[in-house]
């Protein structure tokens, strides 16, 4: 051990129930050497050289937060779209200000064009509303902003796209082009409008290439990595590895971002099963083994992912009786459950952890039936089969999940953001109030984590907000407590974003708590979540994260 660094703090919560608190943590070579007090760790400090880094003196240190279910690369690509809509709107990176008029939009576009780095890449914006922002844009107007940077502006209801002359060139149309939906001035010149499907498809292609093309996945990772870090996250998992651009390109983007120091997280790539089977067939297990060997503590592969249900906010999940409020709103996808045991068997037998998406209680039943069939056929301990999302469920399902040895990774954010809405729209009051039954899972003895699914569903990425939701279960009106018996303690909720989330990713031997020998990942907070008013949990400031002993600030 060449050099120890000691971080003193006002309070350290280790999430190790045996030694729960401390006031200093010592790290070396990326790992934790000791946690306790300056006095308690003297046996180490007498033997090895050390520094005291007191940048976190007065702060509160927790294990680094883990969000075990995100889609950073996929969602980050969209964040390159600038917003020029008429209303203020929440976005993952903060409030986007609405622009009141066409002049304000043109002004904004002018500013964006002036700082646009690469003039061969289109400048993309969305949200323009001709109804409330004084009428349509057109080519000549946009040419005045820039006749060199391609400008692409998509309307709020995106069936019209506006382009300037360089963008028309990039799209590959000129005044002689024919095609439905190409707008023209009275003199026959193209006016820069692309209206309806065929035309917008044409206009979107070069933009899709620049948003999703080579290099953009890497930019997305950097952008979303910064968002996650700001929320205190040090480890996450991508739950649809391979789906967008294929396994190797997506892996390589993360590897490059980590190598160049622009992605301050650990990440586990969880392959999307249908794509894995299509891409590798009989070689799929060998492929995963080779990636595991190639991976390390920063980037690795883990488990396999199934999507067997719809989503909560789009009301496409599958529910048991009495079902949806309005019978015909039960618009759900068809899952070939007949094949599920067969599809999961190779992974189950090989010890590859299964993560299976289930939002509705009907799907939870089908998932548990499948798990029971796998257990009956080939019994396993500690398999960590995880139901992902677990939005609508029953106490009996929690017990059965625990009995079968399964885990849950739960999206808790909907309790606050959407449960009241769905009480009279879709799911009815009983199921809506009881969205995300964490209390039932706890009583059943099941281990669970909290996740954001960021941002395939429109919820923020913030473990402290997830903890706030789990502890308070306050609806969107800010007052009503949704199914009070499903609330859990601050300690249990914090476990669900640290050590229990590590358990779901099968890394609780190395991550998720502050114990000697573990990787030195910390989240540093302004206030102590065990001390503040529970309603103030979401307002605690994240000061910094520490990854492998190094501050990421």
């Amino acid at each position, binding site marked *: 051990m060449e050099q120890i660094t000691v971080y003193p703090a006002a309070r350290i919560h280790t999430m190790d129930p045996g030694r729960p608190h401390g006031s200093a943590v010592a790290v070396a070579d990326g790992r934790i050497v000791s946690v306790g007090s300056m006095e308690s760790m003297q046996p180490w400090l007498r033997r090895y050289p050390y520094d005291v880094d007191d940048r976190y003196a007065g702060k509160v240190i927790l294990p680094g937060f883990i969000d075990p279910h995100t889609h950073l690369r996929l969602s980050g690509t969209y964040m390159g779209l600038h917003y020029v809509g008429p209303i203020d709107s929440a976005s993952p990176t903060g409030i986007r200000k609405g622009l009141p008029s066409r002049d304000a939009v043109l002004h904004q576009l002018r500013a964006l064009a002036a700082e646009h780095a690469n003039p061969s890449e289109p400048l993309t914006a969305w949200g323009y509303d001709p109804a409330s922002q004084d009428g349509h844009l057109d080519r000549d107007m946009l040419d005045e902003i820039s006749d060199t940077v391609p400008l692409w502006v998509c309307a709020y209801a995106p069936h019209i796209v506006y382009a300037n002359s360089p963008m028309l060139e990039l799209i590959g149309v000129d005044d002689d082009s024919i095609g439905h939906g190409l707008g023209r001035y009275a003199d026959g010149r193209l006016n820069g409008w692309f209206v309806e499907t*065929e035309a917008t498809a044409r206009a979107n292609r070069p933009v899709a290439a620049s948003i999703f093309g080579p290099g953009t996945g890497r930019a997305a990772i950097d952008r979303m990595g910064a968002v996650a870090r700001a929320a205190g996250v040090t480890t996450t998992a991508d739950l649809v590895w391979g789906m967008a651009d294929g396994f190797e390109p997506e892996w390589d983007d993360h590897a490059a971002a980590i190598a160049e120091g622009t992605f301050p997280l650990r990440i586990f790539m969880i392959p999307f099963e249908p794509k894995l089977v299509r891409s590798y067939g009989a070689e799929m297990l060998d492929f995963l083994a080779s990636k595991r060997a190639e991976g390390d503590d920063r980037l690795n592969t883990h488990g396999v992912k199934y999507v067997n249900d719809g989503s909560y906010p789009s009301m496409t999940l599958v529910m048991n009786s009495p079902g949806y409020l309005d019978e015909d709103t039960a*618009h759900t996808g068809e899952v070939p459950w007949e094949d599920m045991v067969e599809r999961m068997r190779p992974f189950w037998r090989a010890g590859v952890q299964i993560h299976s998406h289930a939002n509705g209680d009907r799907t939870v039943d089908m998932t548990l039936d499948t798990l029971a069939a796998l257990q009956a056929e080939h019994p396993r301990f500690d398999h960590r089969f995880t139901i992902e999302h677990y939005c609508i469920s029953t106490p009996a399902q929690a017990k059965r999940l625990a009995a079968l040895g399964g885990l849950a990774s739960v999206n808790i954010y909907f309790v606050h953001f959407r449960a009241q809405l769905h009480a009279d729209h879709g799911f009815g009051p009983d199921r809506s109030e009881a969205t995300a039954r964490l209390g039932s899972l706890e009583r059943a003895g099941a281990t669970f984590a909290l996740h954001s699914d960021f941002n395939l569903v429109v919820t923020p990425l913030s473990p402290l907000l997830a903890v706030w939701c789990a502890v308070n279960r306050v609806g969107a009106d800010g007052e009503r407590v949704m199914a009070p018996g499903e609330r859990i303690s601050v300690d249990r909720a914090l476990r669900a974003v640290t050590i229990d989330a590590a358990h779901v990713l099968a890394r609780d031997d190395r991550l998720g708590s502050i114990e000697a020998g573990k990787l030195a990942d910390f989240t540093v907070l302004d206030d102590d979540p065990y001390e503040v008013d529970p309603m103030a949990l979401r307002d605690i400031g994240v000061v910094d994260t520490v990854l492998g002993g190094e501050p990421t600030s």
Partner: protein
Amino acid sequence: MNAETDSGGAGPLRAQPRGTDEFDAAWQATVGSIAAARRQPGDGGADAVGVTVLTGFLGSGKTTVLRRLLAEPAGLRIAAVVNDVGPVNIDAAAIEGLQVASRTPGRVELTNGCACCALVDDLAETLEGLAGARMSDAIVVEASGVADPATLALAAEGAAGCMLDGVVAVVDAQQLAAQLSDPRVGFAVRRQIDVAHLVVLSKVDQVDSAEVADLTDRLGQLAPGRMVIPAMHGRIDPWLLLGAALRGATLPAEAGEHPFEVASAVVTPARPWEVAAVARWFESAPLSLLRAKGWFSSPDGSCHEVQAVGRSWRIVPATGVHDPAVVLICSSQAAVEGAVASLVNLDELTSGQRRPSG
């Protein structure tokens, strides 16, 4: 269209109340549309399989439309891609005189060559699989009630071996007014109507004729230029839903119980037509034009296929040799006669003369 008059397909300018849900939906639609455009376009050539996107809010009656289409496919082999095979209730179709030829999880095939398969994965890949199998003359995608139809249409447009034949929105005559005023679903319904090439007004037998006229006006305001076709019992003539039904230059002359007068005519070009002139004609075609399909030669001797649905049209190089002929379908006999009279003018444009009018 013309920027100065703000006419054309861009929709009326109107301010609407906005909420978080609507914002979420707009954002999802935007990113979905861009994501769908990632694929390289299909060849879009004349041998591509036409894909009709059938959209409509939950309970609008689109499943009934689809079931009728599978039961009475006008001799076409139609592949229906649905979220869930169950509600299409293909056994009920079988009762109507058809037999189920085979049944596998997520797929049912009928003895008339039609099939119904569940969408379990990526839409574009499903479409490419169906197009590659060459077992279908047309594909119909039933959009889930909350799916963004533009995103599905773009996926169809980008799938290899496929081309978008049209977006058809089924609107419930009994529910439309209530849906439009509901802030939670109004956006989705308006968007379906906005995106559609043809709007089918279902359940017109459940409301009186004055109400039908009112609704038609209302739809006309929401989406100027969109043709509205009333339908009862889910019955729609296949050639309105599927361009593939217009393969020949003749049409079944079946009035049936359709309350809507549909009229067709064939125009036979007397000489080659300029592609740009044909494009101009379709861009400003009569609003009563429901569908068109046919072939024409251009002055350089090449053969082109043209097809139109509602306000949308496309012209592609034809595969094989076809006698020049264009079928027009309009909402009334008078309208189709007017369209024919206007289209035959293209004969004169190439020789530098205009057919004398009147």
